Each structure stands twice: as C-alpha cells, then as structure tokens.
C-alpha cells in the first residue's frame, strides 16, 4: 500500500535522471531559488548561529525526555477537547485515519502537505476505500495529478517544468470547465486556486501534518506560504493532525526559537506567510473552525532510534536545506532516491524506515563534502550517520562483492605497513609515469566508473605517508 520503493535501483535511477533534460533544466534553478536566498537571510540575522545551537539543545532535551513530553502533550490535547491516537506503524495510522474519516461519513479529505502522509501512503489507502484525498499544496497537487511521488520535501514538484504543469492542468481541469491550455505561471496558479477552492469547501475532513507539537498547550503548528493548511483545517468539520513523535517541543517560546531558523533555512524567507497554532476543536462561542480535533501520533521506528547513533536524526525539522545544498541531489533530483525522503536526510532516514538492505545505495550516494551538515539548522551530523550506515552495510555483507573484495585487499596491505608503503610508492610512481606531463589519466583499470565522467589527477610523486612523515619533522 505504501509508495513503491525503487531505492535498490538508485544507480539506474540516477543514470536516467542525468539524461533527463527537463529534470536537469528544473534542477539548474535550485541555486538561485534556495541556496542564494538562504545565504541572504542568514546574513541578515546575526543571531542565526546562536539560534541554531539553541534549537539543537531544545530538541536534544526533548528527545531524552520524549515520553514525558508526549504524555504532557496528550493531556493538554484531551483537556482542550481533542484526542490523541498513538500508532506504532504505518498500517495502524492508516487504519485510524480511515476510521476517523468514516466516523463522519467523509467523501473527500483535503490535505496540506505532509511527508508523514507520504511515509504511510495514506492517499492510496483512502482512495481504495472510496474516499477522495485532495492535495492542496500547489506542488503536491501537481504531483498528485501526475501520479508521482514528491521529489523534494518542501518543494514536491521542483522537478516539473512549467510546460509539463500546463499539460497536466490542461488534461485534468477540463472536468471543471477550464478547457484552455495556459502556460503562464500566474494563470496556472489561478486555475488551481479556482479548482481547489471548491474542494476545500466540499471536504468533510482536513488532514494536515505538523511542523511542531507543543507539549505546554497541546497545539499543533503548521507552516505554509499558500495558506492551504489553514483552509484545510478550519473549513471541514474534522481536523486530523498527522505527526511523528519527535515533532513535540516543550513551549510556545521553544517553537518560536526553532521557527526563526526554519523558514530561513528552507526558503530563505524571514518568516513563512502562515504559521498557525491549532489547539483543540472550535470553542463553544466560535463561529468557525472544526468541530473535532484528532492527533494521529506516529512512531514507525522512531522510538527505536533513541539511544542509538541515529538519535540526532530525530532533531530534523524537514527544512530541506541539506537537499538544496547537496551536489548529488542537485545532479539527480529526488526521485532517484527511490522513496519518500531524498537527499542527505533521506540517506540517513530511509535505511532506518525501509531497511538498509533496500536503501543501502543512499548513504553511499554522497561525496562527503559536508555541505549538508554545515547548513543544517539543527546541527545534524549527516555525513557521520551515513558513515554508520556504510559500516552496517559492510558488517551485514550487503555491499557489492567488488567493493568488499577491494576493501579486503586494502585491509590486507594496511596490516602490513612495510609492504603497504612499498606498494603505495610503487603505485604513485607508476601512475605518475603513465600520466606523463599531462598529469591526468583518462582511464584507470578497475576504476572505469570513476573515470567515465572525468580524468583522474595523477599522484605528484610522494605518498601521503611520506608527506605526513615530513610534517613537523615527523613528530607523533
């Protein structure tokens, strides 16, 4: 029922992505769209790094006290007239949401973008049971029409060109009386607004994710620019919040601290257009708002990450900065990663959620340049955790035989220092000789995969160990 996993075919996916001209055209716009804007926003706030440190500390404190905070969050939700549904895995969460929808005879459910919803595959589940799920975030709406998974955690249709969107809308919007094919972005947005407005008004249930849950007040917090989470949650009679355990923060103030780094890291905005705190159902004297408020609290393996080398990953606030700054993501886009979460954060999270046997390629799809960690607002050591996965993959004998043989060969030499030095000197000399004055090698036996796209710079005469020995007079 959940999204088809193509992570085991990462290499093939990546090759296809590199040859996909519209995709490459779309990805080329990411630097101006995300990287440059983030930098400008960060430079405008001198306290940005201090806020990152505080944000990390808040989440670290929450994670080691997660049970306490979740219990307090639940108590506040109940006090306000809402209900919390604890779900150990995706199947339980799907069942709970379906049952809630059926309890109000729902025919359609509007949804604001939620990665957890992708993780549990709720759309297919609702559809299979005769309930229409309607994505309302423009990007999610586009990919729902295209029947594709999101390719980015905050910009799900970033891989689509305007022309492709025009075709999609042209094919789908005739049913709503819009027959002209329009490709102006303004016109496309207006058409989507018109179609989705009717959907908002007709929906029986609104399903949102949550950027935060507040233990102090029992609130959920959504952050959008379009205002779609707001329309989704205040118009239908029931508001369901789907959130994973680690979204909880202690206080309203703690949420504000992290919010100050969220929008800047995500889109380079000072603040997103709409940040909405929802607490319980509408009050007795309110004129609008949902009559029922339900929080579906999903674990799906997260509780088991506590106390392990992957605990820090639970600080992630899903800003997407690591994707936006990753040279691999920028080359192949999000679909190549083959499941819900792409880029560096996906390379760490996906093996945990679907297994290292299926997702083993992802932590290997990294140059270890360290950009992801350097821009992460929560200081998550992503490269270190990818390395943990590589170690596990090796330990479980899941890596390809050629890699394992190569590493075994290297280890054999490394355990024999004299031989290692001799072989390294020999190798450096021979490679230098072959390369000649050009100093570059066009191909290298056994490393064709590396030299197919670029030349190999030849060693310049000395081995690393020689250079190290000379450093500081060979001290240490």
């Amino acid at each position, binding site marked *: 029922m959940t999204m088809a996993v193509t992570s085991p075919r990462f290499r093939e996916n990546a090759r296809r992505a590199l040859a996909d001209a519209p995709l490459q055209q*779309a990805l080329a*716009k990411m630097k*101006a*769209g*995300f990287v440059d804007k983030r930098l400008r926003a960060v430079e405008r706030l001198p306290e940005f790094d*201090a806020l990152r440190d505080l944000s990390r500390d808040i989440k670290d404190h929450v994670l*080691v006290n*997660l*049970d*306490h905070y979740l219990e*307090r969050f639940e108590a506040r939700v109940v006090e306000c007239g809402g209900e919390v549904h604890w779900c*150990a895995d995706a199947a339980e969460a799907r*069942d*709970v949401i379906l049952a809630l929808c059926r309890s109000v005879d729902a025919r359609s459910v509007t949804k604001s973008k939620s990665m957890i919803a992708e993780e549990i595959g709720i759309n297919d589940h609702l559809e299979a049971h005769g309930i229409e799920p309607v994505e*309302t*975030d*423009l990007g999610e709406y*586009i990919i729902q029409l295209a029947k594709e998974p999101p390719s980015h955690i905050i910009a799900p*249709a*970033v891989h689509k060109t305007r022309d492709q969107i025009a075709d999609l809308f042209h094919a789908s919007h005739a049913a709503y009386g819009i027959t002209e094919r329009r490709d102006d*972005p303004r016109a*496309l*947005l207006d058409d989507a*607004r018109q179609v989705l*407005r009717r959907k*908002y008004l007709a929906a029986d249930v609104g399903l949102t994710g949550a950027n935060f849950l507040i233990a*102090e007040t029992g*609130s959920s917090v959504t952050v959008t*620019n*379009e205002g*779609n989470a*707001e*329309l989704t949650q*205040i118009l239908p009679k029931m508001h369901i919040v789907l959130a994973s*355990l680690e979204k909880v923060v202690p*206080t309203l*103030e*703690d949420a*504000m601290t992290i919010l*100050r780094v969220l929008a800047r890291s995500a*889109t380079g905005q*000072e*603040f*997103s*257009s*709409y940040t*909405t*705190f929802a*607490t*319980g159902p509408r*009050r007795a004297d*309110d*004129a*609008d*708002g949902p009559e029922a408020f339900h929080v579906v*609290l999903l*674990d799906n393996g997260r*509780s088991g990450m*506590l*106390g392990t080398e992957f605990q820090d990953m639970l600080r992630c606030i899903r800003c997407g900065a690591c994707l936006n700054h990753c040279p691999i993501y920028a080359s192949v886009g999000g679909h190549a990663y083959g499941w819900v979460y792409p880029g560096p954060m996906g390379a760490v999270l996906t093996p945990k959620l679907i297994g290292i046997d299926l997702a083993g390629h992802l932590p290997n799809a990294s140059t270890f340049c360290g950009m992801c960690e350097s821009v992460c607002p929560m200081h998550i050591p992503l490269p270190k955790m990818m390395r943990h996965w590589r170690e596990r993959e090796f330990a479980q004998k899941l890596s390809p035989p050629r890699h394992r043989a190569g590493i075994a060969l290297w280890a054999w030499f490394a355990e024999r220092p004299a031989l290692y030095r001799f072989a390294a000197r020999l190798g450096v000399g021979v490679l230098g000789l072959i390369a000649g004055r050009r100093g570059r090698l066009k191909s290298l036996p056994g490393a064709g995969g590396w030299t197919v796209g670029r030349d190999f710079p030849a060693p310049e005469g000395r081995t690393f160990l020689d250079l190290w020995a000379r450093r500081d007079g060979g001290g240490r």
Partner: protein
Amino acid sequence: MSGDARARILATIRDSLGADAPGRDESAVEARLAAHEPNLIPARARIDPGAQVDLFVEMAEEVSTTVARVAGADEVPGAVADYLATHNLPAVAKLAPDPGLDDIPWAERPTLTLSRGKAVDEDAVTITGAFAGIAETGTLMLLSGPDHPTTLNILPETHIVVLRREHIVGAYEEGWARLRAEGRGMPRTVGFVTGPSRSADIEQTILIGAHGPRRLHIVLIDGDGEETEA
C-alpha cells in the same frame, strides 16, 4: 489498539533511552514548561517602541503587505474606502464582530457596505482587527474567537487589518507573553500572518495569491495625536 500502541511506544522510548540517559530529568521537564522562557530575542526586535513601529512597517512592506498609516480611528473608514477604490474593488466588506472595532465611525462612509460575521466564499473583502503586530518580521498575530472568526483571515481575496500602534511589539515572544497575561487561555487558532498568500511551486517563481488572500492591507492607527506620515 491505540491504548495498546501507546503503552508499547512509551515502553520502547524508555527502553531505548535507558533510565540514566544524560539529561533525562522529569523535574527539568516540569520546570521548562512552567518557565516558558523566551530563549533568544534577536537584537533587531529589542528597540524602542517608535522604532518597532517603523520596523514593523518596513518588514511588512518587504513581503508585499501594504500599510496605510492614519492618525486616529476616525480616519479608518476613509482609508479603507480609498484603498478599495484604488484597487477597483467593490465597497462591500465583511467586518469582524469585534467590539474593538466599534469606536471606528464606519457609518460616516455610507458608500461602504458592511456586514458582520464569519467569512463565506462569496466575501471578496474582509476587515478584522489584530491582537498584535510583530516588528521583527512584519507579522500579524491573529487570535480566533467570537470576535474574530478565522475564515475572515483566509477566505477573501482582500484582507484588511486595522492595527493599533500600541499593539505592535518587537518579537513573537512578546505576543505570547501578552496573551498569557490576559489569562484567557489558548484560542482554537493563533495565526501568525506575514504577507499575503504565495507559492513558488511553479519553477520557483514566487507568485502572490495562492489559496489565501491576494492582498493584505494594514490600516495602522498611529494614535494619540502623534505625527502621521503620508
């Protein structure tokens, strides 16, 4: 099923962490919740009230909010009517049933047709108050309640907000502090609104007017006989 899952999840959390995980302390949890300290307020927001008002306007305009500064409540109906006329919008609006807007002499502009209540799809223009303006990012803090149905903020194409100078604060946390001081508890919806609705989902081009208002206009009552700017 949920009760069972609850027990299992909590048990897994406790087992995974272990009883003596560093920093694990239930009394620290209680203390943090009770203290709800503002952690760090950027220097940008820690300025005198007059400068906060100017910063609020500057930051709001940066995100395509428009601001008209007027001297007193009696000038609000004229400012609203002028705004609607300038944008070729009909002089018909849904006004929040907010007693805080009752000192505004709406009747002095008989061409302005107002009704009060929550918004419906047909409402093209709404007028509400605001609990606070946050200078830091030009953000409005809007509380739901019988005086301020949330639909007024999000359904119309044009949302006009009447904001009083004395309700402008420096940082978000000051807004929360004021709400706590009033002792009325958490409203169902607290919205922080920073500019009109927008989307960058088509080729990363920012377009104003996605699902919420296309226009967000603030009439700022600069107050108490102080100098007003044009």
